[in-house]
């Protein structure tokens, strides 16, 4: 990021390409690959699973209710995770729950991430009143417990998939805005930014091509780490009845219903939660691996 001639050209500051060493050459790189495969696997199961595992959330088969894991149904099908209080296969519910969880987590991180990045960029680049107002808002929001804010908003706008996405986006933008603003502040005074301005580049161009490109790494790292948090938040909201509305399958909803059957059908609450823990753990490990690989010093 020095001000040498190459950064003065019209196509500036390509992110430094590591020498042609493959990603698997280091331990950190291999961790990214292994955890990445796990995350891709979970995502694929969530996306494609509904096509493979037939599951209709509205189908009630009371004669098959509360079957323990591994038992065979009357039509000979084996339910590996058991059935719930309405006779629905828990494998189907868990896979559909994964789908909702991934959809919500990914879309809220994208929405909150891009909004927060845009606002943080504006605040850091222009400074002055914009900065004061935006960062005031960020400080305010960060002082408010995020899940509590989500509960309040969700209670006001009611449960639906769209509303969950909206709610969880609202509670996360501030983290991105603060990170981006900080990074912009340190870049704004660099020679290549000054040079781009001197060459007549407009502010929008400088922000998009010269500054944003150079701070993508911490943004990507933060986004990966936030996905696991958003999955947990979605499940908590759904568990309280404020997230994904019944009868759409969601991990939180399924666990919440299994609560009433802890004594005679332990699997309804426990199995989806175990699957969820493993999924969140995979996503978290992937986030950590990406962070260690891209920037060992980056702290969140």
């Amino acid at each position, binding site marked *: 990021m020095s001000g040498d001639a190459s950064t003065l050209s019209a196509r500036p500051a390509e992110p430094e390409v590591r020498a042609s060493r493959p990603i698997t050459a280091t331990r950190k790189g291999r961790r990214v690959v292994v955890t990445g495969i796990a995350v891709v696997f979970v995502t694929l199961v969530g996306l494609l699973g509904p096509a493979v595992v037939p599951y209709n959330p509205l189908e009630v088969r009371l004669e098959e209710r509360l079957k323990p894991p591994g038992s065979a149904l009357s039509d000979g099908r084996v339910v590996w995770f058991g059935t719930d209080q309405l006779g629905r296969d828990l494998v189907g519910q868990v896979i559909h729950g994964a789908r909702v969880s991934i959809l919500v987590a990914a879309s809220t991180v994208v929405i909150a991430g891009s909004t927060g990045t845009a606002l943080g960029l504006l605040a850091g680049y222009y400074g002055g009143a914009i900065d004061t107002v935006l960062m005031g808002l960020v400080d305010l929001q*960060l002082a408010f*417990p*995020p*899940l509590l804010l989500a509960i309040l908003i969700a209670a*006001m*706008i009611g449960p639906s998939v769209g509303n969950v996405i909206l709610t969880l986006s609202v509670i996360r933008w501030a983290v991105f805005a603060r990170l981006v603003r900080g990074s912009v502040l340190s870049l704004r005074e660099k020679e290549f930014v000054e040079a781009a301005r001197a060459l007549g580049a407009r502010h929008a161009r400088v922000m998009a091509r010269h500054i944003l490109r150079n701070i993508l790494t911490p943004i990507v790292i933060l986004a990966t780490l936030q996905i696991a948090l958003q999955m947990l938040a979605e499940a*908590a909201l759904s568990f309280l009845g404020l997230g994904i509305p019944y009868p759409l399958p969601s991990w939180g909803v399924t666990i919440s219903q299994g609560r009433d059957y*802890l004594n005679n059908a*332990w699997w309804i609450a426990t199995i989806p939660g175990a699957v969820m823990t493993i999924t969140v753990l995979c996503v978290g490990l992937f986030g950590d691996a990406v962070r260690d690989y891209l920037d060992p010093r980056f702290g969140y």
Partner: protein
Amino acid sequence: MGRYLLRRGLAALLVILGVITIIFLVVRVIPGDPASVLLGTFATPELLAEQRAKMGLDRPLVTQYGLFVRQALLGDWGRSYHEGKDAFPLVVERLPATMELAAASIVLSTMLSFVLGSIAARWVQSPVDQAIGTLSLIGQAIPNFWLGLVLILIFARRLHWLPSFGRDTFWHLVLPTVTLSVQFIGVMTRLIRAGILETMGQDFVRTARAKGVAEAAVLAHHVYRNMMIPVITMLGLQLGALFGGVVVLETVFAWPGLGRLIVTAINNRDYPVVQAAVTFAALAVVLLNVLVDVAYAYLDPRIRYA
């Protein structure tokens, strides 16, 4: 110290005003009309207009905001639609239970994370360190409401060792506190381990060792004291997450605190109580943060003069 207290107090007041502002924005600006919510199916256009006027909803937003802040500061949070009592005392009544759970969890998780973090840092890269690292990652990945149910299933329903719900004896506190602490321990252990390792590499630690200070004294007087700042900062940030967890877990364990009040009130569409309870939970976080900061500034003069 006096000047620091004043500055910190003023900052806290600003944050409190901010919390009230956020509540106002969420409650009043989000689409949806509190008057029609209140009247429900009985709403006729005339009744609605009358109710809106009574609630001040027909005035400009800025006027509404002024009124809202004034009433909030005076403790006038409206009446519970459901119980017919003022919302404010209902909330105050529930505060001790929530604080008890939060405090128990903060104490337990801070102590355990110090022990685990120190062990991991002492034998860094060893199997013990790796086991602690893995466990703390799992701790952060477990959804706490699910963990609560699993612990209830094992320790209350199967083994009959501990009660599964309510707030009565000390034993009632055990399961909710442990559940709430797991995630917190996960976060804090990693942080404390990293803090110790970073401080161990500093020049003053080398100097202390060079002049012959015993290793235990190096740790106690030089390492721990200096790594506390990031840990305390993180503790403050985590308090918000902790309170989010309390709200969810109070539902799982039928713990009669603010969180359960919030969830019940939401189910009853009892919006004044929801508002008051959420505000109080948020204020509790702000105040705990101030306490943490002040306690630390008292111990470390560098914070006071920063």
